[in-house]
């Protein structure tokens, strides 16, 4: 367990009598791409909110980047990046201002965000539009930018909540290349998605059904276990037994 960066044991979240997350356990290794799947309302978002320090769990145990989700939410927030399923940058700010803003709230120094920002703009090929308001950019570019900004402060883990919703297949492909790159640089990627082809790109995945983790393995392992060829079939078998 030495190189695991997220350790979850019997984590539960109750809203009144409703168990949104019911005693889940899992472990994510450093630098891996972990797919967190499940139907709508299965408890993915709640689980992710607890792991990212947004929500206090009811019971159980979880360590994220070496910090306790019950007591050290603030340290967790400093060590993670977060990109929500909805567009998470500001439309009425320019690319540069967005970079500066997120650099600012994560406590980067002026020199740091300037350097990183320039590198980022160059890598994404946004040199010519860096002074433009974000709303004038196509959605695909915005999503890529949002991801780059989410890892601007070199987090240990980045949480991506359905990052590719509403994006065309080519951009999705490019987006996943960026995810691979980040993982290659040692950032652990914790990603939820609805696209089962994307699940294939993950190192390991877990599937949630009604607040519980019903399947938890590598994509290959799961396909073998359920005797099917695609993740889509795995999902249908797990979700509708």
């Amino acid at each position: 367990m030495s190189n695991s960066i997220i350790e979850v044991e019997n984590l539960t979240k109750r809203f009144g009598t409703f168990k949104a997350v019911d005693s889940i356990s899992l472990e994510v290794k450093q630098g891996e791409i972990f797919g967190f799947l499940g139907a709508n309302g299965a408890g993915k978002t709640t689980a992710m909110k607890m792991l990212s320090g947004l929500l206090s769990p009811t019971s159980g145990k979880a360590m994220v980047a070496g910090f306790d989700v019950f007591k050290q939410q603030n340290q967790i927030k400093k060590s993670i990046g977060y990109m929500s399923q909805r567009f998470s940058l500001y439309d009425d700010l320019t690319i540069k201002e967005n970079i500066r803003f997120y650099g600012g709230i994560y406590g980067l120094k002026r020199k740091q965000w300037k350097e990183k920002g320039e590198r980022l703009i160059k890598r994404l090929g946004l040199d010519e539009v860096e002074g433009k308001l974000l709303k004038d950019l196509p959605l695909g570019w915005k999503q890529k930018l949002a991801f780059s900004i989410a890892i601007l402060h070199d987090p240990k883990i980045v949480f991506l909540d359905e990052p590719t919703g509403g994006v065309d297949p080519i951009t999705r492909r490019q987006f996943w290349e960026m995810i691979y790159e980040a993982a290659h640089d040692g950032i652990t990627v914790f990603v939820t998605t609805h696209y089962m082809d994307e699940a294939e790109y993950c190192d390991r995945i877990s599937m949630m059904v009604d607040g519980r983790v019903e399947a938890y393995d590598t994509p290959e392992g799961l396909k073998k276990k359920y005797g099917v060829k695609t993740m889509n079939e795995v999902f249908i078998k797990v979700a509708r037994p």
Partner: protein
Amino acid sequence: MKRLTSLIRKEFYHIFRDKRTLLILFGMPVVQILLFGYAITNEIKDAHIAILDQSNDEVSRRLTDKLVASGYFLPDGQAESIGDVEQLFKEGRIKMAVVVEPDFADKLQHEGGASVQLLADATDPNMANTLVNYATAIIQNFQLELNQPGQPPILVGAEVRLQYNPSLKGVFLFVPGLITILLMLVSAMMTSISIAREKETGTMEVLLASPMNPGQVIIAKVVPYFSLAFLDAVVVLLLGRYVFGVPIMGSVPLLLAEIMLFIIMALSLGILISTVAQTQQTALLLSLMGLMLPTILLSGFIFPIENMPLPLQIISHIIPARWFIVIEKAIMLKGVGIAYFWKETLILIGFTVFFIGVSIKKFNVRLG
């Protein structure tokens, strides 16, 4: 601290890039005060006045000629005594009377000063005020002409008496009322909309996932609106003072401090609304229906509270604006100090504490 500055800077970007917001922030105060001001200001031209010159010497005639020559005033009716003036007022023939005291020239020469009485019909308070202001200005001008360099100064005092409505009830009320509404609008409504927008677009989640704690996020939200609302209040005060002559009789620092208190109250109300509203539209509707309408209708700004039916009078007690308008009027028009409205001030502080308390509670429940 540096992080907080990043947040605050971002809020200013939002405000200055949104034309609608800018229009509300800066266009509205100016337009409203001009509208309110001029809507109840009659044009001053050939206003009917009576002149009672009890001195009737060369200097006093020069003064009355000067008043008439200004074109603002038209002498109407003969007045031989104060009784005649009274009669003319009652008949509604004149709006103002100029009464020159006996031995005007003599007193100016030997006593260094004499006075002119300006009586105005204050049943139309705004009109009365304007007339008196014009006449006073002309008299002051006259005094300047009389004074020769190297000679002892001569004073021509203008003594103003408002007939029928000496406390000027109703007049000047629009400036305190307008400030109240604008502060409510900018602080409560715009803040709640701006917070709701972050929720609607999903950026609030990202902010909360960052190391910024919710308190800092909220503070960063309200700082720009606090400063802009304050600026708005100052603009209205200045316009009121220099365009319409609305005075500030009492302490200006005290007035500004009370304004700040009211802004903080309104901001906490805005935060409370945003804990309930998930979308900008809900926030807008809640603020309009729940805040703006009661503030305009029940605060005593437009309709006097004493004339309302009892149930509405009772409801008006929970309208913060009602108390704030009392404070403003006390400072601006009566010129009294905190001793006269510490109760109202405490009530505003109470509202603020209550709203902040409920907001925190609601917020915690949601994070629960």
